């Protein structure tokens, strides 16, 4: 990673207030993001994967200060985002943007495409009118849409086209960082790759940093050289995508990867999968020690007693799991050899 990251997040915590039904009307807090740290360089994509409800969107929203940060630091370049005042935030808005999962509800239906794309220029940059028009035309063409579409309304477009519009809108002010929250999961497989290829091209041209939130691991691997895996509000493993996918060092990552069905029936019949029992525990009362222990196939005694420390992993990145210092004492090696011994994966 380059010396000066575009985004640096340290020990981020985010909580939600969930009613005041407790004792004496005490407010109950849901700890959705717990001690998350990450860095993204300019022009780089970091993938963020994990189970539904693990806190991926919450982390993305908090990084952009679209929701409040409970504690921790978020820096965009040299600017403090987490502690920014209202006025400072206004200036920050044009430097960071978000693309949401649902292209059907994220665009205001009463605005034309031109109005949607011009809005950030008017609100944040005060660009003169005819210049705005030509910027809109150029941006539409760069996302593969006809400049003439500017006069149309969102409902006149397919899901894939709407997602192009949403991306164009996010890119209008040449932001330094864009959080892409499941940008293709609402789209047809046949059009998903159009959008993925478009995002790669745009990033190549603009040098924008992307935080790509997705539950499709293949999409993340394809798009991002590095990946972070979340479970119940915490990052449990990070590393270069190739290493994390081929040599996972945390049992949750291993389970996640083994669960992706591959479009080859022969392979599906012979593949061994780690089927996780149980369900994601409530973040209101996370398990003691390791948060994954209620579903982990390798759980040991220590796992309920102590939170696992971060261990550096061979080939890059880190994982938080007791198996590295206890039991098989993996010492930073991947889980693959250990799982082969336990006949949890097939040996080719």
């Amino acid at each position, binding site marked *: 990673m380059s010396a000066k990251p575009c985004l640096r997040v340290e020990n981020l915590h985010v909580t939600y207030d969930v009613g005041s039904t407790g004792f004496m009307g005490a407010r109950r807090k849901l700890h959705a993001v717990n001690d998350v740290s990450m860095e993204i360089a300019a022009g780089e994509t970091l993938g963020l994967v994990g189970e539904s409800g693990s806190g991926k969107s919450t982390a993305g929203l908090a990084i952009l200060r679209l929701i409040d940060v409970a504690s921790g630091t978020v820096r965009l370049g040299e600017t403090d985002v987490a502690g920014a005042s209202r006025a400072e935030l206004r200036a920050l808005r044009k430097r960071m943007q978000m693309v949401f999962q649902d292209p059907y509800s994220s665009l205001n239906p009463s605005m034309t495409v031109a109005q949607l794309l011009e809005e950030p220029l008017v609100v944040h940059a005060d660009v003169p009118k005819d210049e705005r028009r030509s910027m809109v035309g150029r941006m539409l063409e760069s996302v593969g849409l006809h400049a003439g579409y500017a006069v149309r309304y969102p409902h006149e477009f397919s899901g894939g086209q709407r997602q192009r519009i949403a991306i164009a809108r996010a890119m209008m002010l040449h932001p330094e960082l864009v959080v892409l929250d499941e940008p293709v999961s609402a789209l047809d497989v046949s059009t998903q*790759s159009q959008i993925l290829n478009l995002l790669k091209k745009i990033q190549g041209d603009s040098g924008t940093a992307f935080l790509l939130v997705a539950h*499709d691991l293949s999409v993340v691997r394809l798009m991002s050289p590095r990946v972070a895996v979340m479970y119940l509000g915490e990052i449990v493993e990070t590393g270069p995508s190739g290493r994390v996918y081929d040599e996972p060092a945390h049992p949750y990552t291993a389970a996640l990867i083994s669960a992706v069905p591959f479009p080859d029936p022969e392979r599906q019949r012979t593949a061994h999968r780690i089927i996780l029992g149980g369900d994601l525990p409530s973040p209101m009362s996370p398990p003691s020690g390791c948060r994954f222990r209620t579903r982990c196939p390798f759980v040991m005694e220590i796992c309920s007693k102590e939170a696992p420390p971060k261990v550096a992993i061979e080939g890059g990145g880190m994982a938080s799991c007791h198996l590295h210092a206890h039991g098989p004492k993996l010492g930073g090696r991947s889980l693959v050899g250990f799982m082969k011994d336990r006949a949890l994966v097939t040996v080719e």
Partner: protein
Amino acid sequence: MSDNTAPLLEIRDLSVQFPSPHGWLTVVDKVSFNVGRNDIVCVVGESGSGKSVTMQAAVGLVQPKGGRITSGSVRFDGQELVGMGNRQINRIRGNDIGFIFQEPMSSLNPAYTVGEQIAEVVRRHRGASRADAWKRAVEALDRVHIASASSRAAEYPHQFSGGMRQRVMIAMAIACDPKLLIADEPTTALDVTIQARILELLRELQRDSGMSVLFITHDLGVVADIARYVVVMYGAQVVEAAPVDDLFGAPRHPYTSGLLGAMPQVALERGHDPIAIPGTVAQAHAWPTGCRFNPRCLYRREGPCTTGALPLTSVDNGLVRCALTEELRPILGRATMVPA
């Protein structure tokens, strides 16, 4: 009454229309396929291609939504369902045919416990006593691996996670031991670890109770995992149908082959960017003439691909609707699956 050698479900030339600003539109166009006994058939296809409407029509659910069946027949276990009276078809649906709808979150009533909701289905269809129905509800929850089923049955939907609610929907659909389970995208909203569990569960139910499954999805990974036979839809029509190994081993229709090439997993394996299918899906009010896929097809040829409507023809072990099938055989065959 039921002939055990005939397929469990036989859909023949089924056509469905819905009203629109452009008049009545044919959104399901002469669709035919079978589901055998103890079988798993998957239907895949583009969004809007008519997958859900086909299933809804098969079990009498399009008329209540303002649609109409304009042709075809649906035989289930020896009985014709098209034209059957409401009361009769309602009895079959829920009893012999379990149905899981595409939007699971909206299909559970937040005001009743999950046990009450399952028991209600059992009472309505089986005329069981309250106590018996409750017992069956708990059993059904247990079969879908909800831990401590007897106490969880007394909880409300909001107390369950998304994956558990999806399993509750499956429990409700199987509570009456149906012969056929129709599952419309039952795992699309879930993440892969929970999806893997639900696929395992469906396979287990099929194996242990002899139930057949008709499964709608747009994920070819899921199809490869669970299907015996696959039906591919595009533009309201079946464009290809074949046993799962044939379909993945040698896709015969350019749309199927394009869909495989667009899968990120396949692209990763082959070390290139996913190959997008260009363009967007045609709409029912403006199908292109000739092959409905032709504006997006890599192999399109003026004339054969753009003139008349194309028939579904028999090729090897399957069926395909393409004018250039023989010509494309060496190009499409296994092309997508073999590392380049």
